[in-house]
């Protein structure tokens, strides 16, 4: 047998040098861009101080993609962009085009292939989302299916600029909230409504009791003796069904087909433009899971969007619009019932009350 030279195992090589992936025009104008213009919801141009123009065409993606998808976008990048492309934080693909003549043919090719071009300007941005039933054990709902259902219905707002401002929707399938869900114009959040179920025997083998107790935001988990052996018990009166204990202790499953669903939150933003960043606030505490198309969630989002489109001034984000018209009017316009669940009772709850005589009658 021929002697094989064992290859040295590569380890800790660190991040790849991004300079390898910058197009010649980007390298030349790095740090020297003068301004940009949005040409249409799928296209923008960045103009450098020396007059160079770099065109960007943005395309939606479902984030979870096949190797074949990757080859599709590579073919387009090779044909029109010298192989250069990037992704955005909201999971879009951006083709970086140095020759203006390539812009329209590239867009036509993408449309022929059935891809979605848009997402720039006063639009619904691609919905950032989590893994859901496809790949997550703590999910209270699927992610991709809800996102697909909402985007199908709101498709016109991805490809046409007709909202008062950019509108960012985000989805998280549980309160872990992977992604910047808690400060979105509209947030959809997977929600459990029943306490965890304790499997005492598995818990003894699998879980560390102190860290399980420490995982609870409401101190609802206490040490307990089960069949003469150490275990935990849950105070169901104070449990808020967050699932944090299940994250650290696999023997406390919380998913419950009949009681899991989604909540809707509004008015958050990350940007500092005009007003400070804010968290999204509760609009609808619970909508049951209704796969495969989640009509209740889709309707709720459309109600919010229509009210926003109708009432907001140009440039106002959802939260700025609500802040101007007041929460009482928001609930009135949307018809969403205001319930006891809308009044905060967690840490800092006191800071959220209306300490004034200001009211819209």
């Amino acid at each position: 047998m021929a002697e094989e030279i064992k290859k040295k195992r590569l380890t800790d090589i660190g991040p790849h040098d991004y300079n390898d992936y910058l197009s010649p025009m980007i390298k030349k104008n790095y740090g020297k861009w003068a301004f940009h213009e949005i040409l249409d919801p799928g296209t923008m141009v960045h103009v450098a101080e020396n007059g160079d123009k770099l065109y960007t065409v943005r395309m939606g993606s479902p984030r979870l993609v096949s190797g074949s998808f990757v080859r599709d976008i590579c073919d387009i990048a090779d044909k029109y962009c010298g192989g250069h492309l990037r992704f955005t934080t909201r999971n879009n693909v951006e083709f970086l085009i140095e020759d203006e003549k390539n812009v329209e043919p590239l867009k036509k090719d993408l449309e022929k292939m059935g891809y979605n071009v848009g997402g720039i300007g006063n639009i619904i941005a691609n919905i950032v989302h989590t893994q859901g039933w496809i790949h997550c054990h703590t999910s209270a709902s699927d992610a991709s299916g809800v996102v697909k259902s909402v985007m199908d219905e709101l498709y016109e707002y991805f490809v046409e600029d007709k909202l008062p401002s950019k509108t960012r929707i985000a989805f998280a399938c549980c309160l872990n909230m992977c992604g910047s869900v808690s400060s979105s114009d509209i947030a959809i959040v997977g929600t459990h409504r029943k306490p965890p179920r304790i499997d005492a025997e598995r818990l003894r083998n699998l879980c560390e009791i102190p860290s399980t107790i420490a995982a609870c935001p409401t101190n609802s988990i206490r040490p307990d003796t089960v069949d003469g052996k150490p275990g935990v018990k849950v105070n169901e009166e104070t449990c808020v069904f967050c699932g944090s204990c299940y994250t650290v202790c696999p023997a406390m499953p919380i998913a419950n087909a009949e009681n899991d669903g989604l909540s809707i939150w509004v008015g958050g933003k990350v940007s500092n433009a005009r007003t400070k960043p804010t968290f999204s606030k509760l609009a609808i505490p619970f909508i049951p899971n209704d796969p495969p198309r989640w009509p209740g969630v889709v309707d709720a989002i459309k109600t919010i969007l229509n009210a926003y489109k109708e009432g907001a001034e140009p440039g106002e984000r959802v939260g700025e619009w609500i802040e101007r018209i007041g929460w009482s009017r928001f609930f009135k316009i949307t018809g969403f019932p205001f319930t006891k669940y809308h009044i905060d009772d967690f840490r800092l709850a006191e800071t959220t009350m209306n300490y004034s005589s200001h009211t819209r009658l």
Partner: protein
Amino acid sequence: MGKKHQTPLLDELKKGKWISFVREIERAAEKSERTEDLLGQVEESYRDKVNHWKHGGMAGVKSYGAGMVGRFSEFPDKYPGIKECHSMRIIPSAGFFYNSDFLRKLADISEKYAGGLLNFHGATGNIQVLGMSQAEAEDVFQAVAELGFDLGGSGSDLRTPSCCAGQARCEFANYDTMKICHDLTEEYLDELHRPAFNYKFKLKFSGCANDCVASAARSDLAFIGTWKDKIKINQDEVKNYVKKLNVQKYVLDKCPTKCMWFEGEKLVIDDENCVKCMHCINVLPKALRSGDEKGASILIGAKAPLVTGPRMGMMLVPFYDINEDAKNDYEWLKGLISNMWEFWDEYGVSRERIGELIGRVGLNTFLEGIGLEPIPEMVGHPRSNPFIKFTEDED
């Protein structure tokens, strides 16, 4: 393996105009047969309204404590192709810039050794390759390493730092977000690969206050580009904007500090009162540009709800001179981060993010611990209650 499953519920999600993830999973299954079983199991979830993944079970590569997330099917006999369906996190190229050569090779790897499915990108910013078994992990790892890519963070460690497109393609960027993101990732590889923290720690870099990577909502330490000197005004371009836009209503009246006004046709800005929110520059990009003395504000403590509620990043350092510090290999910043991590290690408890620790011990204790002086920029307003704990060192 590779058995076709009936998926009437998922098939509904192949209809409609928005790109279908179901179609993507099917395309992946055409290349990697095991992924047929993913369709089967997800269809069951759609019917049962619960996920069918087990909790528990590790996955990883030798000498790393992070970078892989273990995932096991609840029905391994029925869906053997996803009995193990782990994902591998790969540090992205800064700013998510790639070329077709790398992406094609990565697609090949994902089909050869895994389920043919990828995430561009995970919530923190990693590329994710989905659907491999523990036995295949080393092959994927080495194949990816040969392309010059390394694994990202997971668990209680430094999570993969991320940044916006920055100066590569944005005139708003006040510092080189990609460079500092890349350099610090390299600096802290050990913290990234070998979890030794109380909980996760995230670093994110945004070039301006528009904060496209949501750093102040998501990262324990957020860097938001800013400037110290005057906004640069091109008065001719201002006039052009005035012809087509109600600049008074949509720009000046929206300024949070009302620091700009017209004197005749001339736009005047009281820069001392400007809070660098970016609104006027966003709306009038041809007329206004940020100043020349650029750097970043550093905000601390942002996090998602678990365990004690969500937190937004709070101002810690109003102006960090990145360009100056970069000349010294970020000596000042590394010192600050090192002080923070030491304080967090000493006083934090398991699963306590640094923002929660500050909330628990108080900002003053934290500032003393890391050696920063209290300044008014750190607070929305001074205290309004009289319960002051005077200490003996103050006469």
